[in-house]
């Protein structure tokens, strides 16, 4: 089978488009590269969505942890502790087990029946776990940044008559982001790496639609040779990481563009986050 044929058959296989049967024998390198690449769609899907939603919740959690009221502070602290203090692997497993315990027929709530079946599917269930997980990690990063916002900036804002939401939106929040950005970049990279765990712990693959690691595992299983598929995954992830660094580096330059050249901080990819 030619390589063009493989691309046509398997490039979107992870979404269920294309050939239904996975290759069974005479595996070519091209098939492995295409199919594993197809699985990468799910890694990007989980990564992008979890990061986007997680960003919003993380801001809320950071503000909660910095709040004076214990009613806001305590839940935020516990949320961060539980999700940062336990392995993602176990969170996935527990979430899956908890979701399958929900009644099959949906929950009656105020006369409306809420469907629950989709929660056990990886696209939703695993996304929720990743979302909460990254929100906790980023929340801690943002909290640290929030406490480092220079006092002078806030006093200057007061002097100009900024208050409440306006002050937060125009002064506190941009400065917090600027300070948190290098660490947040690392969190994003770790999150993308963590998406490989989805099909490895609890969430089953439907109709052989899985992520990059799922297909790599499939090939390793069929060819009994781990030395081809796993390095392919590795190369894909190195490329993905480079794209992320470029993207976040661009955002970093935007966030810092008002500063004098010498004060700008370059992003160094350093593991300052805990997973």
């Amino acid at each position, binding site marked *: 089978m030619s390589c063009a044929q493989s691309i046509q058959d398997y490039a979107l296989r992870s979404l269920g488009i294309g050939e239904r049967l996975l290759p069974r024998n005479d595996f070519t390198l091209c098939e492995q590269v295409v199919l594993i690449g197809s699985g990468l769609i799910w890694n990007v899907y989980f990564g992008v969505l979890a990061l986007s939603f997680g960003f919003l919740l993380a801001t809320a959690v950071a503000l909660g942890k910095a709040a004076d009221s214990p009613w806001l502070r305590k839940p935020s602290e516990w949320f961060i*502790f*539980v999700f*940062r*203090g*336990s*392995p*993602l*692997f*176990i969170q996935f*497993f*527990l979430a899956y*087990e*908890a979701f399958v*315990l929900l009644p099959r027929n949906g929950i009656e709530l105020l006369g409306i029946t809420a469907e629950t079946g989709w929660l056990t599917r990886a696209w939703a269930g695993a996304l929720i776990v990743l979302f909460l997980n990254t929100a906790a990690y980023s929340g801690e990063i943002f909290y640290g940044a929030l406490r480092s916002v220079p006092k002078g900036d806030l006093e200057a804002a007061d002097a100009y008559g900024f208050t409440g939401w306006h002050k937060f939106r125009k002064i506190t929040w941009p400065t917090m982001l600027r300070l948190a950005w290098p660490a947040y970049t690392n969190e994003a990279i770790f999150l993308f*790496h*963590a998406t*490989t*765990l989805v099909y*490895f712990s609890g969430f089953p693959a439907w109709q052989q639609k899985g992520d990059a*690691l799922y297909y*790599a*595992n499939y090939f*390793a299983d069929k060819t*009994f*040779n*781990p*030395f081809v598929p*796993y*390095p392919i*995954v*590795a190369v894909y*992830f*190195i490329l993905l*990481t*480079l794209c992320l660094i470029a993207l976040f580096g661009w955002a970093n330059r935007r966030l810092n563009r008002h500063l004098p050249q010498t004060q700008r901080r370059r992003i*160094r*990819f*350093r*593991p*300052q*986050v*805990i*997973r």
Partner: protein
Amino acid sequence: MFQACTDPDTLDGLAWLACYLTNGKHIAFYGSFLTVLSLLAITAPVALAFGFGGAVAARSRIAPLRWFGQAYTAIVRGVPDIVFFLFFVIALDQGFEWLRHKVKCPGWDQPIRQGSDFIVCAEAKLPLSSSPQWVHEGYGFGLAVLTFAIVFGAFAANVLSGAMRAVPRAQVETGEAYGMTHRQTFWRILVPQMWVYALPGLSNLWMILVKATPLLFLLGVEDIVYWARELGGAKTNIYAYPHPDWRLWYFLGLLVFYLGLTKVSEIVLARINDRLSLGQATAAGEARRRRAAA
């Protein structure tokens, strides 16, 4: 374990539970907690050593060594750790056996790869196939430690090289002004001072390491996740203690274990941080000095 446990079918309630929780399998399960803790205890210093080597290599004045150090950290960090775990152990194992094979059996004239088989002479097998089971398990554990150390060494290398850059340049220059050689300034000034800058990064790394341990079962080590799955799965009457699917409870137990480990680590690391700040030219060190003087 207990006398009463000889016939589990006759037991019920608490007695059944007590016998169940002390059967041979559960003892192995409890033992696996020690496996995880000892893996952490051994891996941490080994990974730190790897990291130190990597950091020194990355700032070496010899170009190939520098490239090696930089490539090591860049590649390992760019790839999800799980991908490494999935094929590193077999790769390492085969690599070692191949090396031993080259040394011990120079007269061997057959190909090492026969089809998908990987064949080395009997003397080069690691461990020797006549060794008792505990040697095999110990070897598997050793490979796991090495794999973890290679992965986390790359992260540690990054933290340490950042820390070396963070030591104020003036400190090293002062040393040079006193006539110290490059080697002397490195060991006597840079290395003792870098730890306080490295500690936040290393603490995070420790936390990541703790939370990577559930992946141990991928490396063929019978760890807590392996036993939790094995014990928690529904058991039919073929087992002495039949029960439905209890994996949820076992995994909740693991969750508590990890949360506890995190809490303890946080407390200990905060103490170390406080201790290390003593006498350092940082804000925290200054605060300690003031507190002591007051």
